[in-house]
């Protein structure tokens, strides 16, 4: 139904909450438990605070590269919240908020960006694949997780994120097509944050929307206001339902904006105007979500202030821990290549240790 009403070929985009937090499609307002709504908001606040702080730490030379999420919180939290506990989360690399919601700890995330592989060893039972740097390649992983679930008759689905730039990659095509072909329980969320590093969305493809790419695979696609957590939730719920019924994958284009730089090595002033950024500031997902929660009576200004305060304290303590976590042990860089160390690895480790010893290093 929503796919007909919000046909991307007709220039339609799903929005439920406008940028001021007003319900513009009250009939489509999803019923979400208060607990869940608050978990969503709490995640977004922690996501926002830890994200901004990471940039700051990096600027102080205390952290390595970082890819900020500021502005994309609703696109992530709105979608991941509509998935089920046993579902799998497959990342690109700019999904801190989705990760936090799904049980990755802030410490792990920071540790990763601090340059330690242990940051990708999420706790047991946390069904999240590590950050995936090679653009596009993650879609096929989601397809495989979903195939296994389907074959083993487990009620699981996979949600996978990709950027607007990533949709140009061959693997996007192969992965979505594969998912469609076998009616796999996959939800594909394109975070169209308008840029791929310096390259604007219009230079990724001639297609007017990214949602319409679904037609190539015979699956439904929808464009959603990615800064509207309710719209993202609704679209993802419908997609998740389809997945559960064996109807296959759904493509969701979340229209959003990366407020910060691509990563801390990037200077967005080189390729976009301040006016553009200012305009998007008004569409901040946290503003509208907060207004909605207050309107619903689920949040007060005081509670909100406290949330930010707690988040800041949490971030500070977490970063302190990470910053003092030191280096990876030598053995670790060898140990996880195979189940068992191979002869060449043993030899290389021994030789290096012998060198350290003899060199007195």
């Amino acid at each position, binding site marked *: 139904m929503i796919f007909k009403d919000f046909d991307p070929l007709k220039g339609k985009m799903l929005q439920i909450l406008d940028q001021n937090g007003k319900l513009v499609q009250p009939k489509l307002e999803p019923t979400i438990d208060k607990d869940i709504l608050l978990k969503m908001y709490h995640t977004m606040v922690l996501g926002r605070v830890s994200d901004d702080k990471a940039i700051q730490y990096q600027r102080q030379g205390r952290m390595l590269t970082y890819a900020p999420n500021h502005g994309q919180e609703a696109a992530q939290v709105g979608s991941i919240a509509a998935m089920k506990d046993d579902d799998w989360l497959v990342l690109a690399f700019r999904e801190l908020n989705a990760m936090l919601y799904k049980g990755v700890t802030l410490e792990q995330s920071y540790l990763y960006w601090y340059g330690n592989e242990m940051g990708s*060893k999420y706790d047991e039972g946390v069904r999240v694949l590590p950050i995936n740097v090679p653009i596009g390649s993650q879609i096929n992983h989601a397809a495989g997780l979903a195939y296994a679930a389907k074959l083993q008759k487990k009620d699981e689905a996979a949600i996978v994120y990709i950027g607007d730039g990533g949709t140009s990659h061959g*693997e996007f095509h192969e*992965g979505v097509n594969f998912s469609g072909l076998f009616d796999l329980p996959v939800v594909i969320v394109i975070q169209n944050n308008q840029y791929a590093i310096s390259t604007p969305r219009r230079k990724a493809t001639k297609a007017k929307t990214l949602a319409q790419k679904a037609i190539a695979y015979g699956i439904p696609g929808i464009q959603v206001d990615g800064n509207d957590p309710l719209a993202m939730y609704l679209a993802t719920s419908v997609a998740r339902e389809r997945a559960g019924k064996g109807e296959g994958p759904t493509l969701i284009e979340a229209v959003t904006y990366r407020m910060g730089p691509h990563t801390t090595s990037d200077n967005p002033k080189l390729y976009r105007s301040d006016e553009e950024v200012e305009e998007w500031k008004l569409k901040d997902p946290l503003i509208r979500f907060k207004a909605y929660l207050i309107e619903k009576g689920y949040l007060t200004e005081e509670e909100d202030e406290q949330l930010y305060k707690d988040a800041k304290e949490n971030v500070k303590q977490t970063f302190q821990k990470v910053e003092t976590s030191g280096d990876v042990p030598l053995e670790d860089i060898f140990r996880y290549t195979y189940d068992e160390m191979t*002869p060449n690895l043993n030899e290389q480790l021994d030789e290096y240790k012998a060198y350290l010893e003899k060199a007195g290093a």
Partner: protein
Amino acid sequence: MATKTLLEAVNEALDQSMEQDQSVVVYGEDVGFEGGVFRTTAGLQEKYGEGRVFDSPIAEAAIVGSAVGMAINGLKPVVEMQFSGFSLPAYNQIVTHVARFRNRSRGKYHLPLVIRMPYGGGVKALEHHSESLETLYAHIPGLKLVIPSTPYDAKGLLISAIKDPDPVIFMEPKRIYRAFKQEVPEEMYEVPIGKARIVKPGKDLTIIAWGALVREVEKAMKNTPDIDAEIIDLRTISPIDMDTIVESVKKTGRVLIVHEAYKTFGPGAELVSIVNEKAFVYLEAPPKRLAGFDVTIPLPRGEQYFIISPEQIAFEAKQLMAFKA
């Protein structure tokens, strides 16, 4: 005990593994309904259903990429690249994911999967159907690379590969898919990965080969009775069984490496290096590589120059024996 071709042995290993372990799935281009262009997967779909044995679209990255996801979620995918020359579109998945998931997640995830691919020349094929790309896989940490040279080993090594907790690239020498039969036990058995096989002990010269070329070496040396060569079938290209090689070379002092892969920066170079690093003082002659030329493997009307013959092997063996420092 029945005699089987290498192709039949592969089929049997797949069949028995699927029978024994529900989590094994087999797919790739034309692998399901028709049973593969070489018929290595014949009969499997009928027996195990379309869920576990199926035709994929022509999308090698999707084949391997989906196998990554399946392996993480409880399956043991055994996928096929129709020819090794067509594994390259999946090379990004193999190098950046298959080889790395265990390390990236520090052991939270690992990938028990097998990527099978027919490889090698000598079958008068079209372009991209004759490649020997061992180096591309052997050089990548996190992968294992296994190549059988006999029906017996094919079955045992493939069963081992499927049981292995790490990803295994399994190259099948298509030239000898049907070339000869060998007694192959009916029951399941394993041939260990990482162990070379001494095809024939000898004291004069060590000859190292794998895949279809092992037979060529055997033929060559059968006709060269004056040289008592120790013939080693490497079987696992990565990780290499250094001990077997080094021990042999310490005994013989001379080594000939025979492979069809391109010579330069090819697999033979690693063997030369190992021998240098571990048996230098035993060397009585420079280790010799008899390998594929550094050219695109020719189409059939020129392939005969590229393919290594028993005569060439014997010739090089004699040259090596004649070397005096």
